[in-house]
């Protein structure tokens, strides 16, 4: 008798639980169908916006070849899209300070950071030595321009990227990989030839 009652009670509880579960399943199914129809259109809108934004960002990146200069690791990368065409060891700005003995002027030899572009390409460049070059070597600053001109110091090629800064060659190849310059970027001859050949006026340069 007791066993029968227990058995019937158990069956009753199971039936009630199953009924509740089925009811809950039906409610949630309906809810997800409602979510699906409005949710899907919202999702599609967002996907479309996502594509537009990605396209917008991609549109800002340089077309063709560009140059990336890592002053921390003293490396230059010549790139096209995500592909690296050339990786070169460089020397960048020392960060040192030079003060004019008169106390009126001061130079900080940093390589500038940011986005630039090639403004001029020069084969067989000559260096017009600036005032700081003479002050650094305790020489008198010449009045005539021709006394400032130095040949074969900048290597075979130079690419100007504004404000007197260049990517150029160097006589001091053993110092490549160290930041020893007065702000310019020094590159070894063969690498410089490739960079000069593949770059054109307007090629973007990113320095960090």
């Amino acid at each position, binding site marked *: 008798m007791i*066993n*029968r009652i227990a*058995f019937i009670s*158990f*069956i009753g509880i*199971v039936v009630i639980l*199953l009924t509740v*579960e*089925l009811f*809950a*399943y039906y409610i*949630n199914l309906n*809810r*997800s169908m409602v*979510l*699906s129809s409005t*949710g*899907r259109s*919202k*999702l599609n809108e*967002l*996907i479309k*916006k*996502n594509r537009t*934004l*990605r396209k*917008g*960002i*991609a549109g*800002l*990146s*340089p077309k063709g070849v*560009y140059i*990336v200069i*890592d*002053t*921390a*690791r003293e490396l230059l990368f010549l790139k096209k899209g995500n592909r690296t065409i050339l990786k070169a060891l460089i020397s960048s700005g*020392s*960060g*040192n*300070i*030079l003060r004019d003995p008169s106390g009126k002027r001061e130079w*900080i030899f940093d390589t500038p*950071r*940011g*986005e630039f572009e090639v403004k001029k390409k020069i084969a067989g460049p000559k260096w017009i030595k600036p005032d700081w070059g003479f*002050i*650094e*070597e*305790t*020489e008198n600053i010449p009045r005539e321009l021709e006394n400032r001109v130095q040949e074969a110091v900048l290597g075979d090629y130079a690419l100007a990227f504004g404000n007197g800064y260049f990517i150029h060659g160097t*006589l*001091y190849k053993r*110092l490549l990989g160290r*930041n*020893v310059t007065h702000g310019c970027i020094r590159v070894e001859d063969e690498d410089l030839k490739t960079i000069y050949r593949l770059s054109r006026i307007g090629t*973007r340069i*990113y320095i*960090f």
Partner: protein
Amino acid sequence: MKKTNLQFNFPFFLFLILFSLGGSSQAIAGGDSIGQKIRALKDENRLLETELGLASKGTSYIILDLRRESDSAPVRINLKNRGIVLREFDVERIRYRRTKGLVIEPFPLLKKMAFFSPKRKEIRPHKLGDSDDTISELDFLELKEMPSNYTLSFKKGVLISITGQRKGLISRFIPLISSILIHIRYSLTIVWNHLWKKEFAIIEIMMGKEDAQALYCSLEEGMSIVIMEGHPYDTV
């Protein structure tokens, strides 16, 4: 006989209960997954909009994306300009605490703070030797002189501490002391900001020593960072 029936039917009914529970939870999950996708896409679009704004300016910026596809997928700090990645820095470990969810917007870098900041050296004018190969050994700021343990302070109370991992037991001692001091400082910052009801976010990042030094060198005051959070309250 009744006992046998009960023993026979009990597993069957248990199976039915479990089956129906599974079915209802599937229905619940199906609705939530679209909601999750919508939320994730909204956040991603917000990140892309912010990046588009920064990329249009032509100045370098940083994206710290804490979302990961899996537990083993790496987190990276990306230094970018015009949408292109200039350099990726691998992060070994990351932990963050904040008052509420970080808004996806650019936070400009206010200051780089280290116990030993590199100082510029002054050139002493001198005559060069006659040979072109003779270069006096000047001092210059080199990568190895950059700090590997430092704090970056951004606007709106965002602080990022970078700890450069060193190898060897003894060489871990200094960063350990540095980490303890940073931890004390952060605890004080949390209490201070809480008392003055200021919002804040503190992110602690551990990375390789050379990467940490290179990152210090690459960052400039004024550069913006955009942080995309992973799962809320994750310790990555």
